[in-house]
């Protein structure tokens, strides 16, 4: 993650992306042909990817560039490719973001993540006990880092939708954590804190079927979204898919383990409220 860095989407980096449909009349056209057409016109570093099925003949052409050059780019992409392919391409979607908005969105994204972490920490502190909070937050930082890490490692584009997915993963992972914490608290009231590990273990077991069932139903719809949702939503759906899987196991292995660790280190967990 440190070495490769994010492949920031144009929302964060600034640039332009066009989604094109190549008419059948143009014959067999691949990513390479489009890329060399763009590079031939002086747009080095154009990223061309096929989206959807080969029959649909859809491509996304994205360029990260400065605002000055980008101003007429969405028009250029169309006319450039029209010329290169000798046919009329259909522009289905254009998105351009200037560098100023790009950096504003980067700041807003970082703020959004930090603020949601902060709010959640406060909420758990208020509802449970301060000692529960680090485990929950550690679990969700873990989830976010791993999900984001997969995007970095595979070089997938990190855009606003992926960020939205990360925020959902945060909420989702926490959802699991809280259900277990709730049970731990309830069992502590009954059994006392002398056998904390047993209590935690028992609570995890009692809620395990629920944790797995909910993850399963969520995974069902997320997979449906990956399969049928179309290319625009793909990044979002894939980030969710990873996040939900990671979130399920982190609840069990990270959050509760940290609770026990903190208890051993700093004394008793109170069964507050």
């Amino acid at each position: 993650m440190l070495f490769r860095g994010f492949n920031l989407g144009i929302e964060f980096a600034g640039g332009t992306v066009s989604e094109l449909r190549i008419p059948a009349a143009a014959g067999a056209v691949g990513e390479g042909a489009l890329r060399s057409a763009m590079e031939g016109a002086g747009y080095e570093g154009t990223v061309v990817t096929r989206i959807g099925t080969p029959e649909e003949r859809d491509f996304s052409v994205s360029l990260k560039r400065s605002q000055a050059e980008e101003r007429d780019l969405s028009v250029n992409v169309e006319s450039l490719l029209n010329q290169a392919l000798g046919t009329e391409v259909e522009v289905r979607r254009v998105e351009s973001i200037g560098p100023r908005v790009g950096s504003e969105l980067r700041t807003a994204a970082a703020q959004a993540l930090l603020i949601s972490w902060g709010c959640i920490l406060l909420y758990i502190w208020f509802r449970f006990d301060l000692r529960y909070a680090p485990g929950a937050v550690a679990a969700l930082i873990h989830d976010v880092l791993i999900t984001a890490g997969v995007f970095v490692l595979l070089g997938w584009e990190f855009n606003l939708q992926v960020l939205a997915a990360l925020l959902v993963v945060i909420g989702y992972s926490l959802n699991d954590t809280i259900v277990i914490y709730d049970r731990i608290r309830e069992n502590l009231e009954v059994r006392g804190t002398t056998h904390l590990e047993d209590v935690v273990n028992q609570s995890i077991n009692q809620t395990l079927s629920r944790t797995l069932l909910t993850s399963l139903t969520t995974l069902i719809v997320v997979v449906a979204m990956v399969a049928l949702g179309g290319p625009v939503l793909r990044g979002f759906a894939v980030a969710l898919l990873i996040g939900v899987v990671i979130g399920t196991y982190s609840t069990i292995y990270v959050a509760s383990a940290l609770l026990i660790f903190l208890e051993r280190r700093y004394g008793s967990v109170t069964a507050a409220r």
Partner: protein
Amino acid sequence: MSQRARALWIAAVVLLTGWAATSSLVGREARENSWLLSDQALNLGLDLRGGIHWLLHIDEPTAFSRELKHFEGILTDAAEDEGVELAGTQLRDDRVLELEGDLGALLELIEDRVGSSVDVERAGDRLELRLSGGTRDEVLERSVSQALEVLERRVNRLGVTEPVLAAQGAGRILVQMPGGEIDPAGARAILENTTFLEFKKVLAAADNEELLRARYPEGLPEATVVVFSRTPEGDPIEALLVPAEPVLTGDMLQDARVGFDRRNRPEIDFTWNAAGTAIFREFTSENVGERMAAIIDGEVVTAPVIQDRIGRQGRITGSFTQEEAGQVAISLRSGALPIPLQIEEERSVGPALGADSVVKGVRSIALGGTIVILFMLLYYSLSGLFANVALIVNLVVIIGLMSLAGATLTLPGIAGLVLTVGMAVDANVIIFERIREELRRDKSIRNAVAVGFSRSRLTILDANITTLIAAVVLLYFGRGPVQGFGVTLAVGIVSSVFCALTVTRLLVDLTVARGVRALRI
């Protein structure tokens, strides 16, 4: 609450939201033709219905340097009038105006004529003028209102339905044009300066066109046209006969702004460039007492009487309010100056892709929903059916609430709906698992259900409030379509908690009340 009261309360919610949701789903025409359905409906975002979204910003260097040039003109004229030595002026980096000459006298002149609009600094043998913070804000604000005026006219001419044009903070303008049939390249033309401002001599004037034509029984003279001045509402006030060819055109006008005369009455001050000055001086000297009309795209902006021979600078006086004077000045400026606008953000979606997205979204909801429903049925049998009823009620409530609020559904918003289907059963799962557990402890059905629901309630609330926090954060920090995701997610969470705690509860309670031996859960 008794079961009957709860049932009524749920029925009321479902009826209201169901009514709103149906109104949204049947489509615009059916909705407007039916007296029964609500006119308020869910808006489709531009990413679903197709359209163009721009965030424009005023090009600050251009706007600021233009303002400095204006002050340069004022000071040059004033120095000439008062005999103050001004050896040279120069604009540097679009934001500093340098003056050379008799610095002491110049300082006094600046204080007198320009006042607090600029910050003055002495740098060696010259003075450096920069726009003050207040002036910069004022320039941006003026540029935004000018740009809005021009854009509104052009967007309306394109025939866009329901366009959105709004100022967005410091120097920014939001433009949304729904309907994908406008191609982005064509739409960009409205950012170019195509407004045509002309100045023509008024040959004749009358209250309306008929009266005007009545004066020429043999028909209008050759090479003339009739133009109208209108109220802001568009009603004609006066018909004017003017020559086809203008005396001057907008490109010769350097500036126009609101000023005040000695009695502090508002007036419009305007300035010509060198070419305009020569023509205007000759024209006014020959036509004192005649009227001259300023015409933008065939509409008369103002048609004052020429009082005197005027050169580079002139003013239009009359009995108008400051606001009216401001309108005329903005119109004249918009006709004269290209708006220094840049596209900061552009999103355009063709109608085909938008429709595709809707279809794909609905398909993923259908597939995911079906599998989840089947799964719940298999796993929980009768209780699963209850959860499924709650799930469907949940979808109706979400769509209904969003319709009632007139919220906007975007593609990520649909994703939020899909996700809600998956997560909404969670509350039910928590409850059912708890009841099963209690049953295993040999509690009676009635007891197990009561304990199951009461123990689950707090857990469900705690767990969902954290997701709600994430959704609200998205609402505040998200931008564009992603904000729509925050909306559906937030509404979805509230509604699914409601459905699990009321709808499922009622159905389970009703079953238990009928005295079943074993709850199939």
